[in-house]
């Protein structure tokens, strides 16, 4: 059997979602398409790779925030849920950046 308290929470969440208007989702979808078009435009500009990477990753983070916030309903979740998931994700991904100085060492100093 399913836990009765779980079913009660599921019913409450569905009730909350019934009141969400779908209009913002269309706006988010349009914005994501426009941002994608900007990325493609930037791809054909003869830009320095580091600068281009910074702009593209900035745009990707904006797109990711829109998807997580609106499409994945994180905007409507409890603050504890938002903090736990987003802080742990950002922390773990940021920890992986420890590899990048080594990549710069190779390109500037060569392999020893």
């Amino acid at each position, binding site marked *: 059997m399913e836990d*009765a308290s779980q079913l009660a929470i599921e019913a409450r969440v569905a009730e909350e979602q019934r009141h969400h208007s779908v209009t913002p989702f269309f706006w988010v979808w349009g914005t994501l398409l426009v941002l*994608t078009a900007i990325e493609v435009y930037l791809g054909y500009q003869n830009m320095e790779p580091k600068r281009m990477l910074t702009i593209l990753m900035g745009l990707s983070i904006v797109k990711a925030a829109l998807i997580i916030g609106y499409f994945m309903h994180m905007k409507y979740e*409890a603050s504890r849920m938002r903090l736990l998931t987003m802080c742990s994700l950002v922390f773990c991904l940021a920890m992986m950046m420890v590899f990048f100085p080594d990549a710069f060492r190779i*390109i500037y100093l060569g392999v020893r």
Partner: protein
Amino acid sequence: MAEAALPQNVAAIYEPSLFGTYSKKVGMWLFLLSDSLTFGALLYAYSYGRISIANWPTPFHSGSIINATIMTAFLLTSSLTMVLAVNAAARGNEGARRLWLLATMACGTGFVVLHGREWSHLISEGLRLSIFPAVPNQETASEFVNVSKAVPQFASTFFALTGMHMLHVTLGVVYLGIIALRRKFIPILFGCWLVAWLATPSYSPFHYAAHVLLIAALACSLILWLKPKVYDAADTEVAGLYWHFVDLVWMFIFPLVYIMSTKII
């Protein structure tokens, strides 16, 4: 039965959820966090190679960029239809829920087909991994043969990253198919496996990758046999989280892999 002994006002006597939502959703979020680290590692590996190798190839012609842009539009549109499916499920509109789920699956399938076509084109041009079967009558002067030899990291990270994502999209379409059609989707899945297996030449990696559909069909049959149920609004929302995650990951793969490697003539 245990639930017969529960009083009517169950929500009042149970301790409220710590995260203000049901455990299935929290479980899916935890899975997605772990999966984001998998993709994070692959994206960092690609970026590491991109930075540390001076002659990193920029092989994608406008044809590839247009193809990848259409794929992105397919995924973004599938996220919109998925949101509409979740909304319809919350309103209890079963017909609309199924329709929007099928629309999402159609967009996802379109993405996989376009991506498969892109892979096949790159492989026929010489961009390949050593584990791929040799393409008969392939000219050694093909465009990407030198790329594969000079910078083998490009092919390795490209196929690992986009292949992992394609696998996720494929399994997402299967997941949505089960949520939308339940048992009726199993024969469709077996049919898709047969078509994918028989329609691809034996030297194509998709000839072997098609067996993912067979494994998925068998696993889904087992799950539906062991735990048959009607999928409700919560199940649709949890499936939607997975689907949006797949879309989210592509928002990083597309600029990093394709846009950053555009061939400007």
